């Protein structure tokens, strides 16, 4: 790159974002302060900043991802959900988003507690290990399931703390975290019209998407 992009190029329409990110974006009130933890290439941040006038910040573990985000004009720092959330002030954000990352953290319980501390609302999504075909693969195949959502073999997966939707609900209860909203998504991230949380959601949902708060 030899020089700055012309500003006209920055006003370009946002490319459409992943369907599951779209579901998250729809939950965000315009003009709010958002921290996206594990923001990847910054697609959601970019969308929120430009379509919803959000004060959007990100944390990303990969330095290449961070550099790409900052080069797009996004406010992103290199950091790790497991170690860096403790720095952020209590209620510093309206929303803290953790999309498809909780299952890859060392200490999901501590991460969840930080999420509800630093934000008014935490939005968390993760793959559901209780979905019927995962259960079947383990039951009849006898091997760790590899699916459209869980794409890596057991020895190379970043997902070290997989859980089912019901497991997650139990953890929220144990931590006195209120589930304000819950939905299940299909394999491409479209919301499924299922009562969630619940036994059927835990059986049929590929992914869970939760909005959490903690009073006080």
């Amino acid at each position, binding site marked *: 790159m030899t020089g700055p992009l012309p*500003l006209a190029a920055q006003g370009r329409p946002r490319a459409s974002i992943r369907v599951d990110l779209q579901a998250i974006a729809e939950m965000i009130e315009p003009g709010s302060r958002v921290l996206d933890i594990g923001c990847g290439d910054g697609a959601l941040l970019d969308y929120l900043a430009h379509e919803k006038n959000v004060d959007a910040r990100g944390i990303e573990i990969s330095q290449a991802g961070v550099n790409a985000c900052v*080069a797009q004009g996004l406010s992103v720092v290199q950091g790790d959900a497991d170690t860096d959330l403790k720095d952020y002030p209590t209620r510093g954000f309206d929303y803290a988003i953790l999309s498809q990352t909780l299952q890859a953290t060392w200490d999901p319980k501590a991460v969840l507690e930080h999420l509800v501390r630093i934000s008014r609302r935490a939005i968390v999504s993760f793959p559901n290990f209780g979905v019927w075909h995962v259960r079947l693969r383990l039951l009849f195949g006898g091997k760790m399931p590899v699916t459209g959502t869980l794409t890596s073999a057991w020895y190379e997966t970043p997902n070290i703390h997989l859980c089912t939707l019901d497991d997650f609900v139990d953890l929220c209860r144990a931590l006195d975290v209120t589930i304000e909203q819950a939905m299940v998504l299909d394999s491409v991230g479209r919301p499924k019209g299922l009562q969630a949380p619940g036994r059927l959601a835990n059986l049929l949902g590929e992914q869970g998407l939760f909005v959490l708060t903690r009073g006080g």
Partner: protein
Amino acid sequence: MTAHPSITTLDSAAASFTGKRFVIPASDPLRLDSGVELGPVTVAYQTYGTLNAEKSNGILVCHALTGDHFVADRHPVTGKPGWWEAIVGPGKLLDTDRYFIVCANVLGGCMGTTGPKDLDPATGQPYGLAFPVITIGDMVKAQARLIDHLGIDKLFCVIGGSMGGMQVLEWCSAYPERVFAAVPVATSYRHSAQNIAFHEVGRQAIMADPQWNGGAYQAAGTQPQRGLAVARMAAHITYLSETALHRKFGRKLQDRAQLSYGFDADFQVESYLRHQGSTFVDRFDANSYLYITRAMDYFDLQAEHGGSLAAAFEGTKTRFCVVSFTSDWLFPTSESRALVHALNAAAANVSFVEIVSDKGHDAFLLDEPEFHAVLGGFLNGAAEHRGLKFK
């Protein structure tokens, strides 16, 4: 020994260098952190581009220890291109067609801003060691007076590397409402023990030179060239990396086929360092080197804020872009990371990138495409938020 002719040139010519001058009058002096009031103070500076009608496109560039305000001009002593011409100029990252770029020689410097080699109005003699000890905060106070003088209430951006980055952080802490965006590069919120140690080696080298004459070398007609050159040689090593030194020189011999079994510069790396030292004395004043290194040593934003670095940035609205380089062992990434943690704790809007480079601390001055891409993106994003409109 008579004065080195080119040093005489620096002494007498600094006042006549091209560039602009602003004088802080004795009637309204600088109030230094030491308690001393200093005035009149001349601030030598350079500007590039045009200030817009809203006065919202000003960028202050802060220079490093041995830098000066000739960011994008041919250097008046060495004849070399400006030290940040890689990114400052028409159509470049700091685009002079868009922004009004200001850079001032720091307080205590030797390229036109008042420093120890200038005449003390009280005595009519060069200040020498009578010059008050200054701090990074004092340098920034002088810059703030210049920015007042230029009619700029809020700078679009303050940017600088190394000691320049310290000034950026000082600006954000002391004048948060005057800085929209800040880019501290290859720097720290405080000088480490190791960095103070290297500076002390440099100062001792200067003061051990008999030509230094207790700092009154101008009156004595001498110049501590040997001492200043050794200081520069030691410092120059800290600006590079082992990898870069090895790649450039390895164990290659200088103009000879075999070892001389003596203390001549057998190795290319020795010859290179000697050259760095000997050319430096042509363009820099030894007492300025003492004062400016001291200012860096004293810098500690955390201590100044009761041990809490986050307190230095409490309530800040500034957009930060913190940049470090992987092979910089003088201002390592860990320092930038500590700064970022404090900025996070202050709920600041912060971006932080670590650039992979094997060029050491000096990487910030060199052609580093990824650094430049990140900087361009950050500035564009900030300009959009600031509502800057460009043709």
